[in-house]
C-alpha cells in the first residue's frame, strides 16, 4: 500500500452532539477509483471534507499524495481537485469566468487560465453556454462545470462528492461518461455516492459506510455477491397467510410482509422464468397477484444484506426503487412472514 494516494486512518469527527465519523479508515491506491457508498448522513461528505482540508478530524490521520493533511493542508490543496456536493460555483459569474477565477486562484497565469478554461468547456460540452451566467444553468450543467473546475490544474487526486445526486438520468449518464474518461488518464479518484449502480459503474473498489463507520468493503462484484443478486416485490389483491409460505421455497431469504399483508418482499437469486414461477406458486395458493417486480439490488438491499439493518428513513435508493422500498417502511420489517 506504499503507493496509496489517499489514506484515511481512524477518522473521528463530531459536530456538536452528532457523531459524523466514528473511526473511518480506507486507502486508495494510485490511479484507482474508490467509491464511498452510503446513505445520507453516513459520513461520506465529512470524510471528503477532512481529506480536502475543509474540516479537521477530532482524531485520526489522513494523507493525500503522501502529504499529511493535518500538518500540511496548504500543500495538499496543490494536489487535489474537488467537486463538492452543493455545486460550489459563483452564480453571478459566467461559466467561463468561474473557471478562469478558480484557475487564477490556483496560481495559473491568466492567459494559461483562459486557454485551459476554454479547453474544459469544450470537453464538457459547455462552450455554447460559456458566457452565460451560471445562475441560469441546469443542474446537469452546474455539475459538469463543477467537475471542470476541479480539473483545471490537472490534479493527481480528485474528490467527487455525490457527482450525480439530483440529476436526471440523461445528465447522470453524461457525468458518468466524463468521469470514466478521467479515470483512464491515471488520476486517483475518491467518489462518494448513494447509488450502488454508480459505484458499480465507476469504482474499482467500494467502501460502504453507515453511521460514520465502515460496514463493508470490496470490489463491486464482491459486494453484490454478498447481497442477493436480485430482489422481488409482490403486491396482492387481498392478503392471506398462505402467500408468504407459497413463495418461500423460491426465494433466497426471509420474506417480509407489509403490515396490511398486501405486499411481500424478498431477496432472490435471479433465474430464468422467476416471475412466472412466483406467480404460479401464488396462484396455486389461491392468491390474486396485482403486481410483481423483480429488480437488481438497491443500496438498501445491499445494506440489509451487509448489516441486517435497513437504512433509517430511507429515501436514498435509486429513484423509484428507493421510494417503494422506503414506503414499505419499518412496520413491514417487524412483522416478518414465513422464511425459507
Amino acid at each position, binding site marked *: 500500500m506504499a503507493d496509496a494516494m489517499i*489514506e484515511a486512518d481512524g477518522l473521528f469527527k463530531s459536530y456538536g452532539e452528532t457523531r459524523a465519523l466514528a473511526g473511518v479508515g480506507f486507502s486508495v491506491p494510485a490511479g484507482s477509483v474508490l467509491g464511498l457508498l452510503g446513505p445520507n448522513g453516513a459520513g461520506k461528505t465529512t470524510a471528503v471534507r477532512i481529506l480536502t482540508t475543509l474540516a479537521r478530524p477530532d482524531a485520526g490521520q489522513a494523507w493525500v499524495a503522501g502529504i499529511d493533511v493535518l500538518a500540511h493542508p496548504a500543500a495538499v490543496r496543490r494536489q487535489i481537485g474537488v467537486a463538492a456536493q452543493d455545486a460550489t460555483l459563483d452564480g453571478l*459569474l459566467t461559466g467561463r469566468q468561474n473557471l478562469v477565477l478558480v484557475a487564477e486562484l490556483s496560481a495559473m497565469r491568466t492567459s494559461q487560465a483562459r486557454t485551459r478554461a476554454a479547453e474544459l468547456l469544450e470537453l464538457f460540452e459547455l462552450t455554447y453556454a460559456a458566457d452565460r451566467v451560471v445562475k441560469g444553468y441546469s443542474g446537469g450543467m452546474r455539475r459538469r462545470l463543477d467537475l471542470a473546475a476541479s480539473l483545471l490544474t490537472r490534479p493527481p487526486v480528485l474528490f467527487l462528492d455525490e457527482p450525480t445526486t439530483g440529476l436526471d438520468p440523461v445528465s447522470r449518464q453524461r457525468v458518468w461518461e466524463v468521469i470514466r474518461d478521467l479515470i483512464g488518464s491515471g488520476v486517483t479518484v475518491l467518489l462518494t455516492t448513494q447509488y450502488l449502480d454508480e459505484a458499480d459503474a465507476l469504482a474499482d473498489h467500494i467502501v460502504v459506510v453507515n453511521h460514520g463507520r465502515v460496514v463493508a468493503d470490496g470490489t463491486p462484484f464482491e459486494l453484490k455477491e454478498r447481497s442477493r443478486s436480485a430482489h422481488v416485490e409482490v403486491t396482492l389483491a387481498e392478503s392471506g397467510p398462505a402467500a408468504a409460505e407459497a413463495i418461500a421455497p423460491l426465494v433466497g431469504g426471509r420474506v417480509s410482509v407489509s403490515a396490511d399483508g398486501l405486499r411481500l418482499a424478498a431477496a432472490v437469486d435471479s433465474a430464468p422464468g422467476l416471475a412466472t414461477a412466483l406467480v404460479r406458486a401464488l396462484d396455486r395458493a389461491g392468491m390474486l397477484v396485482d403486481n410483481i417486480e423483480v429488480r437488481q439490488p438497491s443500496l438498501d438491499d445491499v445494506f440489509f444484506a451487509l448489516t441486517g439493518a435497513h437504512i433509517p428513513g430511507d429515501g436514498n435508493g435509486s429513484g423509484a426503487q428507493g421510494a417503494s422500498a422506503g414506503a414499505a417502511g419499518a412496520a413491514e420489517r417487524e412483522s416478518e412472514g414465513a422464511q425459507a
Partner: protein
Amino acid sequence: MTSVIAQRPRNAAGNRLVTRGMAEQARNVVSMTRRNLVHISREPMQLSDVTIQPVLFTVLFIYIFGGAIPIPGGGSYKDFILAGLLALNLTTSTMGTAVGLATDLHEGIIDRFRALPMWRPAVLVGRSFADLLTACLCAVVVAVTGLAVGWRTSAGPLPIIGGFALVLFFAYSLSWVAACVGLNSKSPESAASFGFIVLFPLAFVSNAMVPTQHMPGWLQAAADWNPVSAVTAGARHLWGNPNPSASTGAWPMQHPIEASLGWSVLILAVAAPLASWFFRRRTTE
C-alpha cells in the same frame, strides 16, 4: 499500512509549492476584486446606495433642511453640508461589505475557495478593494450632485483631493468593521440590519448634517468625538467650507485631520486582524 505513509511529507513538490510570493498574493487579490466587481455589474441595484441615495440625500438636505439650519460663524448650508453628505453616504454604504461577505459565507462558493491553494485573506482584501472602488464612485456622485446644486470650494486641487481621500480612507477602515459584522452574521439579512442599528446613528450623531452647537451637552460631546465628525470637519477644513466645529473645544475638532487619520488607522489596525480571525474561525470546522 500507515507506517509507510507516515514518513510525511514525502511529496517534495508539495512542500516547495506552499511558499507563496507576494506577487501571487497580489494576483489573488486582483482576481477576487474583479469577481466582486462583476457581481456589482450583474446586479446594478446593489449600487443604489452609492448612486441614487447620495443624490436623494443631497436634494433632501439642501432643499428641505437647508433653509432651517443656521451655520454658526456664517456660510451657506450648501457649502457646509457637502462634506457631511460625503461622510454620511460613505459610512452607510459600508453596509454593503457586511452583506456581501455574509452572502458569500452563506453559499457553497466559500468551500471552493478554501480547497484552493489560494491566499485566503484575498477573500477579505478583494472584497474591501471592490467596496473601496464603489466608494470612489459614490464620492464622484456626491461631488457632481453637489456642484450641480451649488456647492463651491475655494481650495486648490491637492486639498480637494485630500478631503476626498480622508473620507475614503475612513470608509475603507470602516468597511473592515462591516466585514467583522458580516462574518458574524447568520444571514445576509441580519448583516443588513447592522446598517440601521450602528451605521445610521454613527453617521447622524455627528457634525455631518447639523452644527453640534445646538445639541444637548452630552450629545455634543459624543458627536465631537465621533470619528465621522472628525473626517467631516477634516474635509470641510481642507475644502475651505464652513466648519463651525472648529469653534468647539474638543481636541478632535481642533485637529480634525490628525484625528480622522488617527481614527482610521486605529479602526483598521483593530478591525482588519479581527476580521481575518473571524474569517478563520467561521471557516474552521
